[in-house]
Structure formats: structure tokens, C-alpha cells
């Protein structure tokens, strides 16, 4: 199946005019021309936004991580996971909650985020608890695939020390830039800046092995996308050759993230988002080279709607930035955009004109609910 994704200009401007961020959206009237190539059809009920559109369970546990040592309290994580899944689904027993999504025959991918490792990543204790819950509903370790793009980043985390033997740890790129781990027949073709390689291909593990995916992003600021949460992690973390979307001060994350997340079979197979906010990064993301920009929300969010979860994330990151007297992720002033090393140390310097509007754009593609007034949040304090 091949199709063009190019929102007609008039239609887009009408949509932008009705949106809260109309001014920012109007900047994007000339979107790139995306050509999506995939042999997969959408399932009758795609994983995104899934059975709980506009619904998010937030669980906060003060003792989940020690801010000084960054040691994680595994028992607290167990409680957070149980409470969060039950709150999302309404079940009395967490096992029933997991069984809504997974059956013993599933091959389940866990999309971790290791771009900030070892400072911040999908916490091993969180990933281990996910694997344990999958096991409780009959998914064997051999049917679980922890996956990321880059081998060197994943190796620094040592997930193997936390999960049962047999769990697969897979990366698309054993060496940076190799596309051998990507599906040559499932890709998005787009020319952003005249680059010669115009394809971004989907990880083979997604198209060839997995039946379901659990997305485990962190709570992070992002120099290009504004924030990086569910959408950015599942999109840029599952496709090749995505860094080309940034050049100079411009980034195409606004429309590229949602476009990638919509590609089948990724959209249909991603059935659950567990945002790991034990740690967070409020500036310098997606990396975490300076500890002074890490903070500790000590919460996890659960949902099937990546847009709704990310909409809440926007407020977490921008709120923290405001508290630290840093510029807003929405700030588009060129006076704050500078090339060079300034960004790494100054939270009011942007490397690119940030595009937090990518979340609202993803909502327009049908991936979830952006309107904060329409998002139902269930908060739990442990």
C-alpha cells in the first residue's frame, strides 16, 4: 500500500484556525510531502489511540526514587504499575488489566528509550515489572523483545541484569547508520532539505516479529520537538534516518513524528504507553549529559492514547522550565536560538525552533485527544 499524506493547505489552515495554538500552527502551512509505503493494513481497532482515548492514569510515589543516589525502589514500582493499570482499565485485579491487552500467543515488544542513558532511560526496574506482568498473563520471556535503535546506548543500561533469561534485547543498528535492521519495504519517503537518502524505514522487529508493543518513554525536554514522550519515542525510535529532519535552526518534527507514528503496522501494534517519569530531563533532552537538568517527577502515566499522555507531559516539562526560569518550549523567538555549545548549558537557549505542536498535529492524524478539557485524568498518590 502506498499513499500520500499531504494535508491540503486550505483544510489545514481551517484546522489551525480552530485550534488553541493556531498562531504556531499557521507557521506550518507548507508541510513536507510524505509518501508512506507499507504492505500492512490497519487493524480494525488500531492500538493508537486504542480503547481508552483521552484517558490517562497518573500514579505518583514519593519513595519511587531517591533523588541523591537515583536508586529506584522496585517495590514502589510494582505498586505504581498495579495501580496505574487498574486505574486505566477499571479492573479490580491488575492481571485482568494486562490480560485485556496481551494473550499468551503474543510476541510483545517493549520500546524503551535509551538516548539519555546512562543518566536517564526507561528504568530497568520499570521494564522488569512490565516483563513480570506479561509473564503473569502467559507471555513467555522468549516472546518479549526489548528494542531500541542503537546498540551502544542499550548496552550501557544492562537490561539483561533485570529481566528473566530468554528475554530478547534487540537493536536496529549494531553500527550507527546501518539500515540492515530495518524493513526495506515499509518506509516514509520525504525530502526535507535536499538530502539524498529520503527514506526512513521501520525497524524489522516491528514489522516482522511483534504482535503488540508497549511504549516506555521518559519525561524529557527535547531540543527539537519541545518534549519527547510517547509519540517521539515510538516514532523516531522505530524508524531509521530520522535525524535528517533537523537542519540549521529548522526541524520538521512538527509533522514527521505523527506521520511516522501513524504508519502501519506500528500504529496498530502499539497498544499501551507507560510513561516512566521517575526521572525527568527539563533541559538538554533527549540527552542527559548534565545532571543539573535532571529532575524527579516520581510518577508514571498509563494510557493507550499517546497524544493525551504527551499533552500532560507538555505541562510537566514546561512547568518545570518555568519554575527554573527557563524559556518556554513554545518560545519561537529567534533571539533564543543559537548554534554551537550554548544550548547544552543555558536553558534559555534553543538549538532549533522547537515544535511542541507535534502533539496537536498527531491528534489531527487521529492518534488521540489533544484538548486538555477532553482528557480524563485519574490521579493516584502512593
Amino acid at each position: 500500500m502506498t499513499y500520500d499524506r499531504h494535508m491540503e493547505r486550505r483544510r489545514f489552515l481551517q484546522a489551525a484556525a480552530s485550534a488553541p495554538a493556531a498562531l504556531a500552527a499557521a507557521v506550518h502551512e507548507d508541510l513536507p510531502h510524505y509518501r508512506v509505503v507499507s504492505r500492512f493494513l490497519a487493524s480494525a481497532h488500531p492500538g493508537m489511540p486504542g480503547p481508552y482515548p483521552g484517558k490517562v492514569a497518573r500514579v505518583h510515589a514519593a519513595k519511587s526514587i531517591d533523588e541523591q543516589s537515583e536508586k529506584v525502589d522496585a517495590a514502589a514500582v510494582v505498586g505504581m504499575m498495579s495501580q496505574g493499570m487498574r486505574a486505566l482499565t477499571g479492573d479490580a485485579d491488575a492481571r485482568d488489566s494486562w490480560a485485556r491487552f496481551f494473550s499468551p500467543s503474543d510476541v510483545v515488544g517493549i520500546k524503551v528509550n535509551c538516548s539519555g542513558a546512562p543518566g536517564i532511560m526507561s528504568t530497568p526496574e520499570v521494564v522488569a515489572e512490565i516483563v513480570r506482568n506479561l509473564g503473569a498473563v502467559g507471555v513467555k520471556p522468549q516472546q518479549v523483545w526489548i528494542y531500541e535503535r542503537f546498540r551502544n546506548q542499550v548496552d550501557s543500561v544492562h537490561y539483561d541484569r533485570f529481566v528473566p533469561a530468554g528475554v530478547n534485547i534487540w537493536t536496529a543498528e549494531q553500527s550507527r547508520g546501518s539500515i540492515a535492521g530495518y524493513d526495506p519495504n515499509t518506509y516514509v519517503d520525504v525530502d526535507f532539505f535536499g538530502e539524498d537518502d529520503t527514506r526512513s524505514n521501520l525497524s524489522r522487529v516491528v514489522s516482522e516479529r511483534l504482535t503488540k508493543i508497549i511504549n516506555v518513554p521518559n519525561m524529557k525536554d527535547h531540543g527539537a520537538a519541545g518534549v519527547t514522550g510517547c509519540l517521539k519515542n515510538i516514532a523516531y525510535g522505530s524508524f531509521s534516518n530520522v535525524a535528517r529532519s533537523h537542519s540549521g535552526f529548522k526541524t520538521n518534527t512538527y509533522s514527521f513524528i505523527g506521520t511516522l507514528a501513524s504508519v502501519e503496522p506500528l500504529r496498530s501494534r502499539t497498544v499501551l504507553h507507560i510513561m516512566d517519569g521517575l526521572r525527568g530531563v527539563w533541559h538538554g533532552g533527549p540527552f542527559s549529559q548534565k545532571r543539573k537538568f535532571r529532575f524527579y517527577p516520581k510518577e508514571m502515566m498509563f494510557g493507550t492514547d499517546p497524544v493525551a499522555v504527551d499533552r500532560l507531559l507538555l505541562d510537566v516539562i514546561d512547568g518545570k522550565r518555568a519554575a527554573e526560569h527557563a524559556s518556554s518550549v513554545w518560545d519561537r523567538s529567534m533571539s533564543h536560538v543559537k548554534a554551537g555549545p550554548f544550548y547544552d548549558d543555558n536553558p534559555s537557549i534553543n538549538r532549533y525552533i522547537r515544535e511542541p505542536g507535534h502533539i496537536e498535529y498527531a491528534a489531527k492524524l487521529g492518534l488521540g485527544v489533544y484538548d486538555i478539557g477532553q482528557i480524563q485524568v485519574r490521579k493516584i498518590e502512593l
Partner: protein
Amino acid sequence: MHAFLLAALLPALQWDQGLSTENSVKEAGIQRLYVPADQVAGWKKVGFDAQTFNAAKFVKLPAPGVEYKMDEAAATSLPWVDANGWRMARDGSHAYYYSVPWRKATLAAAEAFANGVDAAVHLDPRELAAFGKMLAFLRGIEIPPLPVMANIGFIDDGSDQTGEVMNLMARRNLLFRVVSAPDPHCDLNVQIGTEEFSQDDAADPFAFATLVRKKLTDEKRLVRLYGSDVVLARMNGDATRVRVHLINYGGGKVDGLRVRVRGEYAQGQLAAFGIQNTALADFGIADGGTEFTIPSMNVYAVVDLKK
């Protein structure tokens, strides 16, 4: 698409190490040598095809490879590929001479072979055996009399500026050949100084190559590569078959290179230097093109496609 038939010559070794190295050269499987005049008879006597090396008879080329100029401002962050194919297209009738540092000799040999030119290669003696292996690989490749494939006619005024434009077109795998006047058989003709391609446009060769690509359109490109910034392609072919030369200037292995060739071909065969029992992967036809993956390649691979 006119004929520039591949020369059947393999690159020769330009060797000045003296007859005492006879065994090393023999063990490397090298037969054709350019040596100092006073050594010709001696090398011939022990069985080599030796000729006097006269630098004046060769056009010297820079060493091929890649430079990462991180500290220089540039239009892109792409690595700087030093390739000589455009020079050979400009004056392909010459014999060429490379004097290359360690680990560049196999690349030089592959580049000369792929472009169908005669070349002598002076190398670091540490690379003698590897060079011999490359010659053995090239010797095993059948050389059918196929014309060079190019669908861009380029009118070369011989200036440095047009040279750099040709360099960057080759760098982007925009396959061209030098013509003296616009060729109606080409999909696009490029002449700097015309309304379509002004002198001002050519002042930025990188942008100029982008302009050529845009005017040609990606749909009409004869070949496209995905998954590497440092592999360049060259093609020979006729109505029924095509040979794709893939030269890796990066120095490291490239895994999973995806290739798209314009036109529909039923089957393909791969030979990759230094890799045994290799075959094309994920071969298929889509939207008027044939696509396949090179599972792994070192410095040079050859793909033969048949209808």
C-alpha cells in the same frame, strides 16, 4: 546513452621496491607492473609483465576516500568524498596514476576498474597482499561490452567550476556523461550559463547539484542508494541487462545498503569483494524500479541485473 566501453585492463602495480621483493609480489598474485626503467629486464626475467613507469604518460589522481571536515563550515554535514569518477568522465581516454597511503590501494583499484580506465597504483607495501586480492576479485568478474549508462548530458567547458559541479553530481549519484552539445536522448542536459542553469546557480556547486536533481526528478534517476553517504554508483548496460558498480569510499563495511535501479529486472547477481557466498536480499520491483539490498559490502561490489 552512448558507448564508453569498459577497458579490459586490470589496474597495474607501480612498484619501486626492487627485485628482492619478487616473492612478495608473486605471493600477492600480481602480474602487471610498472617499475623503474633499470628494473624492467630483471622483472621480466622472473616472469612478470613489467613496463617502464613514465609518470609523464599518466594523469595523476588524488587518493580516493572520505574526509570528515567537522571544523569547516559546509552546506551539509555529509562527509567529504574524494572520488575521481568525474575526472575520468571528463577525459576518460587517459591512463591514470594513483599514489596512495595505506589502506587506499584497493579502493583506487576498484575505482579505476569501475570506471573502465587503465591505472597504475603506487601503494604502501603493507597493502600489497590486499591489493593482490582485489586484483584477483576483479579478474574473476566477467567484463561484458556494455556501454556506460547516464541520462544527464553535461556540457563541460573545462573550468574548475564545472569540474566541481560534475564532482558533486557524481557524489549524489546523478549519472551523467560529458557531451559536446545537448543530447536529445538524455532525460536532461546541463549547460552552465544557460537560462535553465545560470552562472549564478553554479557559484554554489552543492546547490547546483540539488537543482539538477530537482529538474531531473528522483523518479527518473537511474540509480538511488539508501543507507550510506559514502557509496557511489556507476552503471553500464543495454536493453536487457545492467551492471551496477558500487564503490564504498568510507573505508568501513556497509551493511544493508538498499539500491533502486530504474527499470524492471527479473533477476540479479551480486559479487562483493572480500565477502563469500553473498546474494542480493529483499529483491523486488516497485513503481517502475528494481530494488534490492546488499547484505554487506566492503570497498567494492558489482551487481548484474537481467530482464
